Each structure stands twice: as C-alpha cells, then as structure tokens.
C-alpha cells in the first residue's frame, strides 16, 4: 500500500533543500510551498520544517466557500483549483499551521499537494526525496508504526510522538527528543 510522509524533527539541519526541491515538482510552478523555521536562532542552530500535514479533516478545505480545495484519494489535500478559488483567504486563516500561501497577483491560494503527480504513483515527494538528514521520509504504515514504537513508553504515551497534534493527519511526526532514553551500544 502507498507510503506516507513522516517527519523526524530532531534530524533537521536547516539546509532548506526541501524548499529548493519543492520548486522542481511538475505542478508547482517553481514556487516552494512549505517552510523551515529557525527554532531559537540566538541560542542554537536547531531548525524544523513546517510542512502541510495533510489533515484527515482539513480546516482549509472545510473553510473554503468555493470547494476549491479537493482531497485526493491518497489523502493529499490539494492546492486550490484555479477555476474555483475566489481568493478569499479563509484557508490561510483557518489552517492551524499557517500552511496555505497566497498569490496576490493571481488572487489564488497555493499549497503543498504532496507532489501529487509523483505520490499518486508512490514516487516520493521531492522534499522527502532530497532531504539529506532524513528529517523528511517516505515510509510505509508499518515503518512508521515501528519508528513510533521505538519512542513509546509503558504508559502508552509516546515520548516524542503524538497520535496527532491538532487533529488527525496523514503526515506523521516524531517531535524532537528521539534520542532520549536511547539504549547505547556500549
């Protein structure tokens, strides 16, 4: 079965290769659709990608009065349809992660579509393909379960993984801290 995007935030090195690669996707008009943040730049060099999590019940689509935001059968929440988007920017306000971007000239929202022209055929999205640090990975459900299990505690709560943040998402995340409690080889 198809793979999913998995984020292991601890790994991020801030190279922003994901953003550069985003522009290379066929449907992306040379514009990148996600973000990489400096977490605390005066203190250290920790960075993290802020990617569309492709919510199962996405606020952006729910808030769209024109039904311009379609959900692909893979679960990918697509970029606004040019012919339907009315440029109201409800989606940019409703998204809890601030993902949808807005092109003022075109009066059009654009966002991560998980490289749908690739992922529909189970080719990894550009960001996860190039990510040098394996912060972004393209994994099967079993691989993701295994990753998350490594950080599970006896009380049933993951150390660094949550079932989901705001609401259930198709993209899964391991928060920073994956090395806590890691059993050392020697």
């Amino acid at each position: 079965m198809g793979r999913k995007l998995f984020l292991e935030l601890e790994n991020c090195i801030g190279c922003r290769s994901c953003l550069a690669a985003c522009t290379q996707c066929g449907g992306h008009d040379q514009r990148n659709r996600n973000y990489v943040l400096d977490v605390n730049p005066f203190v250290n060099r920790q960075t993290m990608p802020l990617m569309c999590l492709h919510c199962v019940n996405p606020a952006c689509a729910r808030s769209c009065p024109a039904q311009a935001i379609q959900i692909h059968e893979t679960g990918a929440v697509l970029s606004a349809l040019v012919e339907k988007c009315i440029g109201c920017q409800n989606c940019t306000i409703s998204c809890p992660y601030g993902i949808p971007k807005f092109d003022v000239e075109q009066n059009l929202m654009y966002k991560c579509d998980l490289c749908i022209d690739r992922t529909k055929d189970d080719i990894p999205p550009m960001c996860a393909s190039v990510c040098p640090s394996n912060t972004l990975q393209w994994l099967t459900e079993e691989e993701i379960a295994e990753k998350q299990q490594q950080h599970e505690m006896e009380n049933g709560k993951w150390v660094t993984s949550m079932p989901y943040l705001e609401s259930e998402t198709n993209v899964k995340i391991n928060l920073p801290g994956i090395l806590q409690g890691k059993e050392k080889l020697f």
Partner: protein
Amino acid sequence: MLKDKFFREIENKEHPNEKLIKTHCSYCGMQCGMNLRVDTSSNKIIGVEPRYDWPVTVGKMCPKGVTAYQQTNHKDRILKPLIRDDASKKGTKEGFREATWDEAYDLIVNNFKTLQKEYGKDSLSVFSGVSMTNEKCYLTGKFARVGLQTRYIDYNGRFCMSSAAGGFLRSFGVDRGSTLPWTDVHETDCLFIAGSNTAECHPTSMFRVWEVQNRGGYLIVVDPRETPVARRADIHLDLKPGTDLALANGILHLLIENGYADESFIQNHTNGFEETKELVKEFTPAYTSELTGIDEDKIIRAAEIYGKAPNAIVMFARGAEQQHKGVDNVSGYVNLALVTGKIGRPKAGIATFTGQGNGQGGREHGQKSDLLPGYRKITNPKHVEEICKVWGITPDEMPEPGVSAYEMFELMHNKTIRGLYLLCSNPAVSAPNLNFVREAMKNLDFMVCSDFYLSESAEFADVILPSVTWAEDEGTVTNLEGRIIKINQAQEPIGQSKPDWRMQIELAERLGRGQYFRHLTSAKDIGEEFRLATKGGNADYYGATWDKIDQQDGVFWPCKDEEDTGTPHMFLDKKFYHPDGKAKICALPYRPPAEEPCEEYPLRLTTGRVVYHYLSGNQTRRIPFLKDMCPDPYVEIHPELAKSYDLSHEEEVRLFTRRGEAIFTVKITEAIRKDTVFVPYHFGHEQSINLLTIAALDPMSRMPEYKACAAQIEKLGVKESI
C-alpha cells in the same frame, strides 16, 4: 554493489517531452548522484530529478545540488571570448570586448611567446582547480609542462586538501581520502568528527551520521562552533581554533594510559609508537584543556568512548587541515586509529571530507607543483621516465618542480612570474591575504582566465576564454570515498563556449607543441591516455574504464587491470604503502597558531562555509534560491562578546586584522565560543573575509592558516535615528 539499508528501488518521475541524463552534482566531494532533466525539443537542461539508484546518496541532494542545473543556461554565462585592451582597467569588470576564438588565441600565443623569449620558459604559470574532471586535471598538468614548458603549475587544492594529502602520505604512504566506502559510515559505533561542519558542507552525509546515533552509537564533534552536527553530538569538544593537535595528542595519551592501545597491531603494522607515547605523556587532560579551552571531563569522556568503541571512524575536514600545522593535525588524528588498531577493516578507519568535487582525483594526477599522474613525484627520476614515455618527451625536457599556490602569487609580485593562465579557480576570493594576492594579479604582464562566469579573478585578466559548465562535458571524477565516477554530458555547450581540454589542445597547436596533443580529440581520448599514465602509480586508475565505472556504480582506486574490480576498503591486508608495509605513528610536538590573540587583536577569527554556497561563490551567488537564502556575509559573535563591544544583532561592524579589514553585519548566537568570531568566505570584492586571513603556510602542505588568526572589532558610529 554496496547497496545498503537506505537503498530503495524507486522509479523516476518522467515528464512528457523530457529525458533524464544520469550524472553527479557539480559541487563538493560528495558528488551526489542526480538526473538532469533535458527538454527533448530544445535540448536544454530544465531541471533536476533525484537519482535514487546512486548507492552513496540514494537521491538526496542539498540546496546547492537541487539548483545546480540552473548554472548552465544562466544569463551570466560568457558566450564568446573577451579581450580587454586597456590594462589600466585591470581589477574591474570594465573594458572587455567580444572577440573571435582566433583573435583571442593569437593574442595569448603572441604574449606567451614574447614573455618566454624575453624572460624564459618559467615566466609563465598555470593556476588551476579541482572542480573539474580527471581528464581536464590530467591534461592541464601536461599542458603546463609539455605545452607551455613551465615549471610553475599549482592549483586551488593547496587551499583545500593538501594537508590531508600530506598527513595521509606521512602516516600511510598513500593518500586516499577515505579508507572505506561511505556505505560503512552509518554502520560504525562511533564517529569522531573534527573540524567538519558536515551538515552544511557535506549535507548528504548526514542521514548516515544520524543513523549511528539512532543505532545507539556515539557522535563526537570537534568544532569551535556548535554547528548543526555538533548540536546533536554526544560530546561536543568546543576547542579554540588552531589547537587540534593538542587535542589529538591529549586523547592519544588517554587512550594509551587507559589500556586502549592495540599492542599486537602496533607491533606488527606500525612504526613510531614508543617515541609518540613519550611525546604525548605531557598532554594530560589538564594541560590539553589549558591549550584547547575544552573542559577536562569532556576530553576524558571522548577518549573513553573512542577507546571502547568496537568500530570507530575518525573523520576530519578543513577545520583541522587549514592550519599552518594542518599536516600534523591530520597525522595526529590518524594516530588515534593506528594506536587502537581501528583501521584496515570494514566500519573502522579514517576519512577526510573532500571539499571540492574532484578534490581527490584532481590532486593525484599532476596539477600539483611536484606531482605527475598516478601520484608520481616529479623529483623521482624513475617516475619522470615513466610519464615521459606516455607524453613522448625526454626526461631532460621535464620541468623542475614549481612552487605552491600561494607562493606563485609571491613570484608574481617580484616579477619572476609574468604571465598567468588561470582556470577553474577564483583566487581573488579564495586565497588568503587578498590585498597581496589581488596586487600580484594586477602586477602580471599578461593574464588569461578561463571561466563560464565573469569571476572576481577574471576581472584581472587581459583575455577571458568562455568555458563550459560540468553538464556540457563528460569525464570522470573521484569522489570523497576514492570512488571514480562518471559525469555525463546533458547539453551541447552554449554560445561559443568550449571545454578547457579543447582550449588547451588548440593552444598547444598554436604554440608549436601540437604533436603532443593533436591525437586527443575527445574527453574519452584523454581518459584513455590518462589511465595509461596512472598505470603503476600509487593512484592507479588503469583498470577503471568508463564501461566498468558504469557497470559497477563507480570504481574505487587502486584498480590495476581489467579483472580488478577496485578497492573499496583500503588496508584490509594490514599492508600500508611505506616500503616496509607499516604505517607511521607520528610524534608531533604541539605548536600554537602562527598568530595568537594579543592586546591589540584579542579575538580569534575563523572562517568557513554556509550550506547555500560553494567555495568562492562564483557559481552559487548567481543562483536565485541560494542568493536569497544567504545574500551577504556576516560575523557570528557570542552574545557575551557582543555585549562587551556594545554590539547588537544585525548591526554593522568593522572587523580587522594586521592584513586587512571589512565591514560585516553582526549575527548574534550562543552557538560559538566567546573568544572566537566566524565569517563565511564565499563573497567577493570588499566582502571577502580573506582580506583579513593570514598566509602562514604549513611547512609540508603549503596550506594557509585560514582557520585561525588574531582579529579585532570596532563598533561603527551609531546611526542617528530619524
């Protein structure tokens, strides 16, 4: 071959009316695999697609790699030869006019001939680089010695890899940058990484580095700054710039003291142990801590981890190498592996992160002032004879050894060298002590520069020859593992641009030396002669045919004949390349940096890269994404240091040393030592930090000490707020 847990069979996305050309990145020594997307109607490169089936990098690329394709059809490309008649405009972009190849060649040949007639053959010089194929590197060495008949050839590897080379030659008797393939890196139990900002300079190594920790292994990072790789390290040894040798000696002392020395390995496979043991006794944790500024506890813990690790890899880069004791630092770190016997088997060994794309291959085959192809010495009569046979000259026609890169600028200053043919390099940004170097270039009677953009160095030229980008030519490159790989042509050269090898062959013809070059009509022809020239040398490529490289996903040298599949792991038989087959454990007395902080210049200045730029930035500063991400240099300062100078974030300050000064924007971060400031070196003109750096050269490698000098900051006048 050598496919590991990260390798996955993935089909590439193919777009209509496009074809994919398999090749590698143009930039660093990782040489990440990539596919260039070529439009089949225009036959132009239009994009990039990951190369999932390349075993080293499995599709991964850094932002430089992703955008590398934008170089080829860039608006700044030089499309025709350029001539400048008014020498008073040297050092500026002004005064160039377009010319034909014939006119440019005639001008070059006339000037070269006149200079050589008047001042001797050695009045000409060649300054080259290693961001180009083995075929070009090989031919450049031959062109200098046979075409121009000058002794003066050297290359920008002196500013990059020469200390690693010197250290490996002394310790092992052979200089292959990594003793093992990169597919071993994530399988080791401890990585000891010194002076490498791996996450920014070799980002596609990072998934392997993190995997060591994910498996429960250890990561030790030595760096004055808490770089992105140091941030996650188990131990971050935050040393003062320029004190690596003290740390290496200190750790070696603890390894020996605490019983981690492998007596039988030392006995059977090394020389020099007793003497070294005596020398490092002085380097107690307390003394090491005093010299390096690292907490004693951390030094002790690092030695314990490295000592205990069943397998470990010691890795280093320019941080340790770009010092006036760079060679000693390298041998000092290599000592750790030799004394503990953690070498000569899979998952354990030594590696340097090669900075330039072909930093490995380019230093082996005759661009260095004293080397001939196959890592032969120009001072060894037998070696000279072997190469003379391939080149068709007699040994008395072989020029003497020349001088190192920086020393060539000294000879330009005093008019020993009067003409320069510069290719594949931008020393007006990348050399140290730039006021002196720029003056030297201005002082030349005649200078030719071959480049595909008008670099800061090209601004000093009388003639600029338009060369091609990596994607418009083909040939082989040797990556940081020592793996020979194939670069493929994706597009025909644009405008009237030509590959450097073609220019050299055409120039040789006009210089009356055509008989030694005219049988070479393609990169492949040069490759064939090049393989033959390496036969029997230490760096033997004879068996590495282009077909074998394709079939095997690269060939590790040495590869001696058709049957030989190459040598991914070095020293598996515990045989080193010194005549007695033993490695050398080196006793290395500590020396501080050439210029220590003082009252007048109390700060330690160190330099390095950012992830968005490559070398002098001549390429990456023109790529919109990379320029947006890092448009200008800056000076990194710890908040406490900033406070003592009353500086705030993004304020402009004057930074100066005994050699020069520049204005930089302050970037405040706790991720740097309080006594050290850092500036990235990728920028030109008045933004070059190398205006300030020191040209203290390593006595063996002639590497300048970019990584440590004494500096001072001056707060600029407070701007009146309106």
